[in-house]
């Protein structure tokens, strides 16, 4: 998984415990300032103040990314920055890369000290939360360019655009044509995906043969953001959802509706009947490649390793339709401008420069992800219309339901992950979902519904 798009919202920093309210805030700022001063002193490279102008020289714009240790994407971003710096003399963008695991906490700590960089990348489901918290500034005057982007790569909140991304990833039911043939299972297409019943019948058939350890693998061994990213689309395909999207206030009657209970019952049955492992291994794609499972609920990132082994035999089937159409999640890493930027005009100029199709193509190509624009897709081998990976782009276009774009999402994500895990472990579906709804609604109310 090159960019690991689905595990973004995880732990956030301890130092942020020291937030808000008079004295506490002061103490917090002093402490964080001291910590930042130490960091700055420790690595002389990192000590850039956002948007400062060296006497006479260009204005320096700092940029943070989560891509340290992720060569492909970091290289692509750096080459865009180099081209931008060479294209004009007014601004100089300076990249600082963080390891993904500590990226969010660095941003949260920097925000408390009002030391955010000018430009930063944000995991899409965090955008609404960070925009609400005042970390991110809305982007103006880019609607024309971004109208050509896949909607799932343009992060909006409250009617304003806060970030855009170069690529998306898509979920798919990975299997092999030869398996479908052997067990006499219909090969699905975008026009005619499997129905829920058809899919379950297929699993039962494969199970009866005893040829595989498990008929399917849903990657239940992963933790964190994978759970809402991977399984809330199935919930939505059953006709339920994480929160009522008419006003984003309550989950009552949505996450605990009859349809949600039907989803939970189905999900629980998968594990109970040993149709999927209750806890998958750390690398379910490897298990699939090794013939331990016949179907793999995973994403476009598995294309390389599975094709390497099975070639054209691999089939990326659309998600089964459980009544409300096939669904996949959307949104990956996106770029935005912070509110601490000393030169917002410069940051905006970079954002416009970097949104060009050729850069979309470059980043998508180097990360093996779905390019967000049609023009870029034509330039990325495999993603051109009719190309081997074009199917993922079509899934993204047709089936995407975004994870709810509301500041309450990070909390909803943890509750959904927990309730799904509990359901898989055998909890009573209805009462588990009721409890999750109660917790989500309490959090919504405690935050005055994020108004």
């Amino acid at each position, binding site marked *: 998984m090159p960019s690991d798009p689905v595990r973004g*919202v995880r*732990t*956030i920093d301890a130092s942020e415990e020291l937030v*808000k309210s008079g004295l506490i805030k002061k103490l917090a700022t002093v402490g964080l300032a001291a910590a930042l001063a130490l960091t700055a002193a420790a690595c002389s490279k990192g000590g850039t103040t956002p948007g400062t102008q060296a006497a006479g020289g260009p204005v320096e714009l700092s940029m943070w990314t989560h891509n340290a240790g992720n060569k492909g994407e970091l290289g692509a971003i750096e080459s865009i920055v180099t081209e931008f710096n060479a294209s004009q003399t007014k601004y100089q963008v300076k990249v600082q890369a963080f390891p993904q695991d500590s990226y969010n906490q660095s941003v949260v700590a920097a925000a408390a000290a009002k030391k955010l960089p000018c430009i930063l990348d944000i995991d899409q489901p965090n955008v609404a939360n960070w925009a*609400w*918290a005042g970390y991110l500034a809305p982007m103006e005057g880019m609607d024309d360019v971004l109208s050509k982007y896949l909607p799932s790569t343009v992060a909006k909140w409250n009617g304003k655009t806060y970030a855009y991304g170069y690529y998306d990833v898509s979920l798919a039911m990975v299997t092999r044509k030869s398996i479908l043939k052997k067990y006499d299972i219909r090969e699905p297409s975008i026009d005619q995906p499997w129905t829920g019943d058809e899919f379950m019948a297929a699993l039962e058939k494969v199970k009866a043969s005893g040829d595989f350890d498990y008929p399917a693998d849903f990657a239940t061994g992963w933790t964190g953001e994978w759970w809402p990213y991977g399984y809330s689309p199935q919930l939505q395909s059953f006709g339920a959802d994480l929160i009522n999207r008419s006003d984003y206030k309550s989950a009552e009657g949505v996450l605990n509706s009859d349809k949600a209970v039907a989803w939970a019952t189905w999900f629980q049955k998968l594990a109970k009947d040993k149709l999927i492992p209750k806890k998958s291994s750390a690398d379910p794609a490897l298990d699939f490649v090794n013939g331990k499972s016949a179907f793999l609920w995973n994403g476009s990132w598995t294309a390389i390793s599975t094709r390497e082994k099975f070639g054209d035999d691999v089939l990326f089937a659309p998600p089964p339709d459980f009544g409300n159409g096939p669904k996949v999640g959307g949104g990956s890493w996106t770029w935005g401008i912070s509110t601490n930027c000393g030169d917002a005009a410069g940051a905006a100029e970079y954002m416009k420069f970097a949104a060009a199709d050729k850069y979309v193509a470059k980043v998508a190509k180097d990360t093996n992800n779905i390019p967000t624009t049609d023009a870029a897709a034509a330039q990325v081998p495999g993603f051109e219309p009719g190309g081997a990976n074009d199917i993922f782009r079509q899934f993204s276009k047709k089936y995407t339901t975004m994870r709810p774009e509301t500041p309450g999402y990070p*909390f909803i994500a943890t509750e959904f992950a927990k309730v799904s895990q509990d359901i898989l*472990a*055998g909890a009573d579906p209805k009462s588990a979902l009721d409890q999750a709804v109660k917790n989500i609604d309490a959090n919504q109310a405690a935050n005055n519904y994020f108004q």
Partner: protein
Amino acid sequence: MSTSTAVLPKAAAPTKPPKKLSGSGHSQGRVGALMLLPAGILMLVFLLIPIGLTFLLAFTNARLISPVPAKFIGVDNFIRLFESSTFWKSLTNTIVFAVVIVPVQSGLALILAVLVNAKVRGTNIFRTIYFLPVVTSMVVVSMLWMFMYQQEGLINSVLARLGIIGPDWLGDPNTALFALIIMSAWQAMGFHMVIWLSGLQTISGDLYEAASLDGASPWQQFWNVTWPGLKQTRTFILITITISAFSLFTQVNIMTQGGPLDSTSTVVFQAVRTGFQQQQTGYASAISLVFFVLVLAVSLVQRYLTRDKDLGK
């Protein structure tokens, strides 16, 4: 251990002329304060201030990420906490974990210590082997045991040889906590073995010699010489194991994330989850505060029960 340190200054004092001591007292005090400073600052910044903040934040609705300033909300957090079934589950798990692991871990560590204290060749090798898990990172140990506990993992394969069908250790609410206890005891046992060992080695050989002259069996020697001689060590071990048992977190975070069905959720795990993943700083502070009171109470009770009764006379 503590008796020997108490004796040393007394023995050393008479060699120094008392006059000189009082003369340099002032500057010595300053040097002392100076030497205390680095540790003092660290304690202040990383211990006292955070504890103070926890007390304050526990009564507010502070959030990790929010544009709205924190408000004082009285004891709302505590009411919510005491009404939460996850909290009671976590508290029960924590207590069960502590109650089981204290005797198991200290008992096994004592057996190991007695074994490696024997005057035979090669004890150093065993000491090293038993101590290895302690110097291994808990994260690594947790990962390894996670593999061993899998349905088709090492442990179940061994059990299968014996004709027993092993459970899904970490996936079954009935066995998950038990599995964590075994693994935790195994990991930390070596550390307490060393502490016991240091205690064993403070017991004078003369006592054993006298006991064997009186015709005491090895078992009688253990009960009448070794056990009373380990009194101080026992107190230390009891308190350290209890406190570390209460702060159970790493294993849970890596191996089970509190599941299945909250069967391995602990108070600290719940605090971290609500504080960071769920961004509820105020509520997490309330959990931490309850945890603080709990550990304090347990330590005080232990101190009282294991106090040196002779001192009162």
